[in-house]
């Protein structure tokens, strides 16, 4: 199949690639850019393990062609740590609140939460639950994922999150 040239910004770096028109963004990211944080869990857009941020929107990269990302600005899980390499508030929140177990959904979940907090810096529990409804987790039962996001929101806002002290 003939290939097309694309260029886009991924985690702040300009990258170029040759892709088939049918190449999925998730495969481009994982196999050409070797950024394997985003995962494939369902092929139908339901699980959200492949979630990345594209032009300030959460997208499911298994439902997006790489060509559609031409010229876009993408952030993946590999691009959200603090500039000094320490864990971001969300990454730290997931660890502190035990918001993950097998880790497979985690990159997608964190990327979704990342966008959620950009759009709503102080979400209620219900808003968090609806906000991450496009991301499935098989291990945690979500209670601690919600807490992880609350932890991060509090840390970013400089407010108190009582359960963080435990």
């Amino acid at each position, binding site marked *: 199949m003939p290939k097309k040239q694309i260029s886009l910004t991924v985690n702040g770096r300009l990258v170029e690639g040759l892709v088939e028109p049918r190449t999925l963004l998730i495969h481009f990211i994982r196999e050409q850019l070797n950024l394997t944080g985003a995962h494939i869990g369902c092929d139908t857009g339901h699980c959200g393990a492949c979630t990345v941020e594209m032009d300030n929107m959460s997208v499911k990269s298994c439902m997006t062609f790489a060509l559609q990302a031409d010229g876009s600005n993408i952030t993946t899980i590999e691009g959200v740590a603090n500039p000094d390499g320490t864990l971001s508030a969300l*990454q730290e929140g997931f660890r502190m609140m035990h918001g993950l*177990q097998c880790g497979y959904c985690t990159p997608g979940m964190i990327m979704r939460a990342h966008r959620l907090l950009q759009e709503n810096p102080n979400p209620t529990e219900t808003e968090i639950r609806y906000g991450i*409804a496009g991301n499935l*987790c098989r291990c945690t039962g979500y209670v601690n994922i919600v807490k992880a996001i609350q932890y991060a929101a509090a840390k970013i806002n400089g407010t108190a999150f009582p359960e963080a002290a435990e």
Partner: protein
Amino acid sequence: MNQQTPIDIERSERTDKLQGMGCKRKRVEDIRFTQGKGNYVDDIKLPGMLFGDFVRSPHAHARIISIDTTRAKALPGVIAVLTAADLKPLGLHYMPTLAGDVQAVLAEEKVLFQNQEVAFVIAEDRYIAADAIELVDVVYDALPCIVDPYKSMSPDAPILREDIKDKMVGAHGPRKHPNHIFEWQIGDQKATDEVFSKADVTIKEMFVDHRTHPSPLETCQCIASMDKIKGELTLWGTFQAPHVIRTVVSLISGLPEHKIHVIAPDIGGGFGNKVGVYSGYVCSVVGSIVLGKPVKWVEDRMENLSTTSFARDYHMTTELAATNEGKILAMRVHVLADHGAFDACADPSKWPAGFMNICTGSYDIPVAHLSVDGVYTNKASGGVAYRCSFRVTEAVFAIERAVEVLAHKLGMDSAELRMKNFIKPEQFPYRAALGWEYDSGDYPTAMKKAMEAINYKQLRQEQAEKREAFRRGETREIMGIGISFFTEIVGAGPSKNCDILGVAMFDSAEIRIHPTGSIIARMGTKSQGQGHETTYAQIIATELGIPADDIMIEEGNTDTAPYGLGTYGSRSTPVAGAAIAVAARKIKAKAQMIAAHMLEVHEDDLEWDVDRFRVKGLPEKFKTMKEIAWSAYNSPPPNLEAGLEAVNYYEPPNMTYPFGAYFCVMDIDVDTGVAKTRRFYALDDCGTRINPMIIEGQVHGGLTEAFACAMGQEIRYDEMGNVMGASFMDFFLPTAVETPKWETDYTVTPSPHHPIGAKGVGESPHVGGVPCFSNAVNDAYAFLGAGNVQMPHHPWRLWELGESLGLYK
């Protein structure tokens, strides 16, 4: 409270520093997982790696007339297409299952379930492989199929397994019909029948624990890489039991076991799905051996849900006999077990129905009888333990539903009925009617604590009022209170009754202390999210006084880890956890000798103090474990080997028996069938608690999977054997919106035979949760005369139930 002395404070600071057992240590694994730096199978890229994909049958039962691979092979980028004809000369078109049956790797003359593997295409990339499977031309002649297991043994049923149709004795005894797999019986039938014939009250209901799927978020996948020069095969895969996989691959392929390197990297959840051996593994191995190149196989979600290892599909006719006062006298159960097209259950070899004989539950039932008939149908094979020990969810579902039905018939409160029949604390160790010896338990204490926490009496009162209001037409909402008091049986198991393909179900640990006092330890188990790297280090930290942060845990590489049977059936803590403690104690014994030499005292004059040996009565004279480690390599005592390490292969003397009391409060809108869980309270007793944070996380996850199973998740087939809804579009995985909030609680009754008293917890919430949800739904509708309402309880089914009860007139 006693005033803490400075010595106490100093000691407790040293203890805290270790991050040992009992503390909420944050997980080591999370550092990489939160940064997208996990290493899962599909993340691995090897030079020259090829991709395999399956051509699958659209029919549930059909004769294969021809397979033409010409067009596929002509597609640029396609390297090979394997069919049964290629595998047959190698004797690999069938493979042995863990249950003593054989299973087609690639279908030869017939296909026996929809999506069965027919051909394996190997291509340069996954897109070309996907194109090529469309170009393999297979001509089928469709045959009548069996979907309903109750029709499997009809005289006119089509014979499914022609390959074994004349074999009238199977791996587990005589077969009654060509579609019969086994009959398994246990208990005293005559005595049981006698009690039933004379009992005041009996109940009999058929409970269906319907077919579902473990469905981890990462599907099953592998990479086989054959080095033809060295004659060595490396196999990366999503393996819950990597050592068993190595042995099986050796037995199947004929490659010597030492030339097979099995590596299970990070695994994205397992829940029982990743125990067995699948066609994809065998075909990748064959492909790599033939081509001399790495072959990767990655299941897609539809393949996962419709082919690799379903769970449940147990049809359990359950009877209880009791006195008018509610004392249960006997239990009688018959199970019709739908195993699909091949018997590929992942049970210990001698247990064709797993540990279904734990079905007398938490109750002192003097006599019981259980029989199980396994049958073939035109469905996918499997029968794995989905987040439970072998068939334990099924067993607990049968007894916990039956107790509710009995209470209803007696007009008794079901909590009171349970209390009346509990095995009493003083009866432990308790020998149950169907053979198991329960190690420890205190059921009444757990039940009372749970009832108080949930304010049970008040809930029943509220329910009575709501029912009156419903009858008066003031509300269309009904309220259900679900109860489940479960006893699990985990930690398989003692070699006298537990083996997999002849390998006893021990597990192992190897601990090595380096000269500077840090540790590497390896186990025969394999975490799939349980957090072994974190919790195993906590056990060692407490046992050896080395901080958990200085301990590296490694699993999954069969070249370096000691042989073990893997992680499933909540066996990691009961078996490998015990091996860790025993290995650590061997090291400690040697450390004591070294310390005695260093301090120039007799060993018996030393005592252990958190992280050091000190001279009795002279606490200022001590040697820390770190100092001892250096000495072990620098100046070991005469007549003692240098080094400080130990291995243990732990043979458990018994299973462990975690238990718990669960309560669910549910409000159901009868007009929409939408059920809302108002409260779910889970009290678990898993013995000694290693990391309460991780235990709580496990309980949350198990309850969520129980919620899914009870309230919607199902693998259904239509009458043509088409699998309905094998994608996340239809297969119910709850999101954060539907999932109830969980309340957790605990009691601690240590296991008397386990070195650290721990019992295992990962599966309890699933085992206890499923009947709890179902009991809540059944309880809600009971006053409307609903009788036995079968799972899954999704809104459509509940709406149908409402209609059948005449609620919409």
